């Protein structure tokens, strides 16, 4: 089956620093989503980005589907950015997307004041 690998597994930043999180996937995918999981377990949607580049405030994401990777950029990090960041891919099915998200293992980010 498809493999989704995220790097780095852990990241510690000083408040105000920038960071790049990477998601590699081993096969063609139709969709890709980035999530932030807060300490209470809630998965918060960051980006729905099957290809191209999107920006939302201090966060931006780029997916290069032909090269099977996606990047999440966090600029001017804040302590509230701490948590686990997941990428998840949706496999192509017979009639489009399957709706079965395959998650990576996550990147745990700690932002220190």
């Amino acid at each position, binding site marked *: 089956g498809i493999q989704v690998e995220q790097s780095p597994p852990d990241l510690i930043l000083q408040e105000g620093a920038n960071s790049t999180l990477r998601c590699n996937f081993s096969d063609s995918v139709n969709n890709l989503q980035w999530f932030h999981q807060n300490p209470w377990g809630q998965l918060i949607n960051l980006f729905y980005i099957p290809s191209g580049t999107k920006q939302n405030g201090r966060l931006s994401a780029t997916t290069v589907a032909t090269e099977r990777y996606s990047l999440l950029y966090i600029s001017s990090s804040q302590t509230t950015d701490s948590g686990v960041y997941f990428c998840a891919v949706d496999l192509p099915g017979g009639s*489009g997307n399957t*709706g079965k998200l*395959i998650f990576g293992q996550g990147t745990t980010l700690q932002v220190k004041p």
Partner: protein
Amino acid sequence: DAGVTQSPTHLIKTRGQQVTLRCSPISGHKSVSWYQQVLGQGPQFIFQYYEKEERGRGNFPDRFSARQFPNYSSELNVNALLLGDSALYLCASSLEAGYEQYFGPGTRLTVT
């Protein structure tokens, strides 16, 4: 607008018991998916339902079952609970099958 809601928030059960978890999707969403997340790992896909029909099933034993109701809400049932079933159970809804998924706050199940 209300997001995805799940109940209960927390649950403690004994080995061998049965449990039912509930999920209400975002209004207008027709697809509901269930995921299991054990500590330190990413969520694992269990089931997807669309228009009240099962559209996908992950690699979980037959002790796990689910259904979707005419109002698109859903229940996940787990029979004969094992210690290894202790996890955060997440429900996600999407407008249609395969569209962007939005997750509820989860139900944290502890099996003792």
